[in-house]
């Protein structure tokens, strides 16, 4: 399996995917940091900057919604093989398709976690510099790393696993991306605004729980969440459930 994973890591590294994702990650996180400093809490007046524990954690975890990029990473890792027909070679090398999917899952978890680390670094550097420039404390921000990083990185890894699961079922790249984004950007929001109790069960709610970060729920509605490990298990469950279905579908799939 380590051989398959090393091969998978090289496959990702030799496409534009990691560079594009990293670029988008910097862009998104930069905007989110800007939003925090321009928000009415701090008034843009310079006399107040994030300083409470919660404010600092929110700043450090500002790139949290970048987990969508981790999801896309997982989706792309599998659909790119079908798009460019490299799956033929992959299946010749790894004829057992469950092994193929398992290799993708593990590699995606590693790369998703790395993307999480990257976004934390971006938030620490970008947020920290802005903070110091406005008279805040960089080291106070850095002190929140142990509290924020584990859950943050875990969620990114879990979303990449989920992405591979989705991609293993919907091998058409465009379809997989539309379904993924459609769910997380539109459908999930509609569903949970209608049925608040559903929030803790959907992937975003499970991810919120797993991250152990209290997110601003701007609408003032307090949504119940699972404990962090329950949320993590639920997220992992979604990813593996889809991956098992996907593997079964791939096993019967003719590659012509």
């Amino acid at each position: 399996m380590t051989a398959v994973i090393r091969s998978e890591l090289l496959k990702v590294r030799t496409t534009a995917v990691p560079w594009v994702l990293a670029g988008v990650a910097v862009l998104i996180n930069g905007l989110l940091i800007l939003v925090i400093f321009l928000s009415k809490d701090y008034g843009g007046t310079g006399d107040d900057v994030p300083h409470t524990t919660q404010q600092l954690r929110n700043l450090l975890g500002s790139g949290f919604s970048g987990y969508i990029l981790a999801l896309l990473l997982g989706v792309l890792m599998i659909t790119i093989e079908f798009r460019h027909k490299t799956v033929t070679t992959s299946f010749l090398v790894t004829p057992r398709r469950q092994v193929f999917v398992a290799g993708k899952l593990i590699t995606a978890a590693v790369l998703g976690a790395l993307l999480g680390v990257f976004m934390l670094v971006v938030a620490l550097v970008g947020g920290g510099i802005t903070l110091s420039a406005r008279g805040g404390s960089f080291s106070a921000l850095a002190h929140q790393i142990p509290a924020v990083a584990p859950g943050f990185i875990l969620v990114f890894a879990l979303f990449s696993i989920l992405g591979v699961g989705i991609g293993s079922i919907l091998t058409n790249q465009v379809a997989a991306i539309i379904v993924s984004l459609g769910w997380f950007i539109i459908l999930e929001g509609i569903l949970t605004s209608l049925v608040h109790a559903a929030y803790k069960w959907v992937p975003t709610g499970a991810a919120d729980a797993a991250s152990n970060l209290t997110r601003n729920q701007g609408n003032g509605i307090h949504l119940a969440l699972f404990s962090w490990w329950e949320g993590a298990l639920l997220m992992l469950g979604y990813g593996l459930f889809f991956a098992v279905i996907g593997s079964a579908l791939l096993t019967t799939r003719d590659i012509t």
Partner: protein
Amino acid sequence: MTSAIEVRGLGKDFGHIRAVDDLSFEVAEGRVTGFLGPNGSGKTTTLRMLLGLVSITSGTATFGGKRYADLDHPVRHVGAALEATSFHPSRRAEDHLKTVALASRIPMTRIDETLELVGLTDVARRRVGKFSLGMRQRLQLATALLGDPEILILDEPANGLDPQGIQWLRQFIRGQAAAGHAVLVSSHLLSEMEETVDDVVIISQGKLVLQTTLADMAAQAGTGTGMRIRTPEIHRLAEVLNAVPVGWHQVAPDTLVIDGATPEWFGPFAAQHQIVLYELVNERGSLEDVFLRLTHGFDASHPMAADSGQSAPFLMPGDQS
């Protein structure tokens, strides 16, 4: 002689369509087996079933008794070059090979070796998206060879190669067989393979038509020997030929072919009847003729199939003219 590949009663249904039907054949070690059939006859489907890419409806396909998926690191035993499109365009040639080498624990030194073998050393660092069809075909071969496999499966490897490339491919394939490897190579053109293969497996409409050695097939082709005659007096020649027990058919307005005739017989015969000749050629039936005879009528896309009923404007044996 041991068989490297054994196919037993192989069948494949795509919905209600039987693409491959009860196909059995063997591929021997140290020999090149041509897998021949018209386009759409089921060659590619069969090869993909051997390699576990397409599921098998019935029968078995094994390599030394094992299914492809049961081989330990299969690409180190069976090298396959299937199509010229399966590369990520932004991946460099050597990185493509590296992904295969890493997953199958093949020493990295093999990458340079195989690139050199197929003549791609100079473009090892170039992205595959910039490759020509012929270069992709070579990279596909390099991928197949990477694990130094004892069995090679090549699907239409000559497609996209220039004449020098095809010449190189022939020598390469012969070299593989000489090294004791088994090679199964598909083609829809026998002429392309005539100088390369030892054995032939011919299929048509998913069914086995013939498995034999090329030598046997050449012997069969020999039975089609005849004389091609060009003459300004074709009607008179037809008349006198009808009076003797030989078969003949017209191939052009002024040309006909006499089956089984020899110059020793036809020369005096023409002199006796005082027929003027422009051309007199000893003609051997080609392997391609045998191949077409065996497979044609099944392949609607082949021009020969459309031509088969088209002898109307020509004289036929027995015509009174």
